[in-house]
């Protein structure tokens, strides 16, 4: 009786989009749609986690708006990360370029948000520590500040 039966959906509209100079990101789509699952898997099976990681970090789908693409890409990367033994993590981190380290940090945070099991989380935390030591706080800041996010 006291609640109106009219729809309240108008409250969910983002009213700012109708303003004349509403800011929209100028992200240019570079066609990257995520790493090649088969290639990564073949490197993992061959016992070459370092190469698996390198391939997994290519074609990061930072420029698309599709959350499913990003989720799939993150899962492939997590598989490459967890295929490393503890002793293999440091040489892999050392072999990455600064740009690859930035992308890896973005994937690590994306993986954190995907609610993995405890073994994967432990492995991710180890990776996070190693990448942070190498790339510094700047890599974490770029995960937050970069408009092209995962």
């Amino acid at each position, binding site marked *: 009786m006291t609640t109106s039966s009219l729809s309240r959906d108008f409250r969910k509209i983002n009213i700012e989009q109708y303003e004349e100079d509403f800011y929209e990101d100028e992200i240019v789509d570079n066609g990257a749609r995520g790493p090649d699952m088969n290639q990564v898997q073949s490197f993992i099976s061959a016992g070459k986690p370092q190469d698996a990681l390198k391939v997994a970090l290519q074609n990061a789908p930072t420029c698309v708006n599709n959350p499913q693409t990003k989720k799939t890409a993150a899962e492939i990367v997590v598989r490459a990360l967890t295929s490393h033994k503890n002793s293999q993590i440091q040489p892999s981190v050392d072999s990455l370029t600064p740009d690859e380290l930035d992308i890896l940090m973005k994937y690590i945070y994306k993986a954190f948000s995907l609610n993995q099991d405890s073994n994967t989380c432990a492995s991710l935390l180890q990776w996070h520590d190693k990448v942070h030591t190498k790339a510094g*706080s*700047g890599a974490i800041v770029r995960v937050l500040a970069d408009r092209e996010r995962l």
Partner: protein
Amino acid sequence: MAATALQSQFSTRPISCFSFNADRSKVALSLNDPVIYIFKHTGAGKWAKTDELREHTGKVTGVSWAPKSNQIVSCGADRNAYVWKQNNEGVWKQVMVLIRVQRGAITVKWSPQENKFAIGTAARLISICYYEASNDWWVCKHIKKPIRSSVLSLSWHPNNILLAAGTSDFKCRVFSTYLKEIEEKPAATSWGKKMSFANLMGEFGTGVGGWIHGCSFSDDGERLAFIGHDSTVSFVQGGMESSIATKTQFLPFTDCTWISPNAVVAVGFDCNPMVFNLQGPGFFFSNKCDDSDKKSGGSVLSGRAMFQAMDRMASSTSSETIKTKHKNTILSVSRTADGFATGGADGQIIQWNVNALASKFSSMKL
């Protein structure tokens, strides 16, 4: 050997903005409130307050002291700006400025010849103000297109016409501020030929990085450096198509300035001024100016503090104390005759001597 740094503690509150006069005997600063304080140097890093300029009704966000004409311009969150002049008795009196903005002002800078100043505002525009003697006030013209967000930082080119603006739409732009009412037509520079008012000479930055907190023209105006919130330092030379960004491993910077034709110092959330040298295409990190964090860390805590530390950081020794000279974020940096001066959120202004720093850090090439 001269000391590398002269520290001066002004308050426990942050120094939101500051500006020295011509010979650094006086400083005008604001402590995050609507008052501008003027201090006089009484020797050995000690300062005595001489004046309080109270006219703003909102926080003072920018202060700039013109070295030759001895005028101070201030801008605030109350959408106002004032130009202050000392009369014959030494009392500072304000002159009205009409900046015609609907949002707060963020930063203000005098031009090299001090006949105009630029104000960056949250209204997505820059106000270029010049003096009109008929009414004894300062009037302005606006630069609007294509700025899409707040203007966070400004830097004048030595030719008194070109102005670099770093904005929170992730770009740094160079505009022409040529006003035919007060100046001659400028000669062409490496940034472009056409210099009508508000003409965009160049737009730099990836557009997908971080807010551009600080930008700085070099002394000869040929080079431009700007820093972004994505922990990058970028470099452009006049005539280049796009800027070259250097990603750093540090926390983001809040301001930067050139200290020599090849070196830039950037300050920020790491509480430590960092020097970057120009090598090849872009900037390379050279050294931190404050090496106090090399001292051995950790003193044993006692009692409650020990258990708090164990709970929070799994260690029973204290690593909490900040070992740099600045105990909090450095908010701004400005060029001085023998180096640069930094003002921080810890209420300190520290004047650094670059020659002393260069002799201490061998990797620093001026």
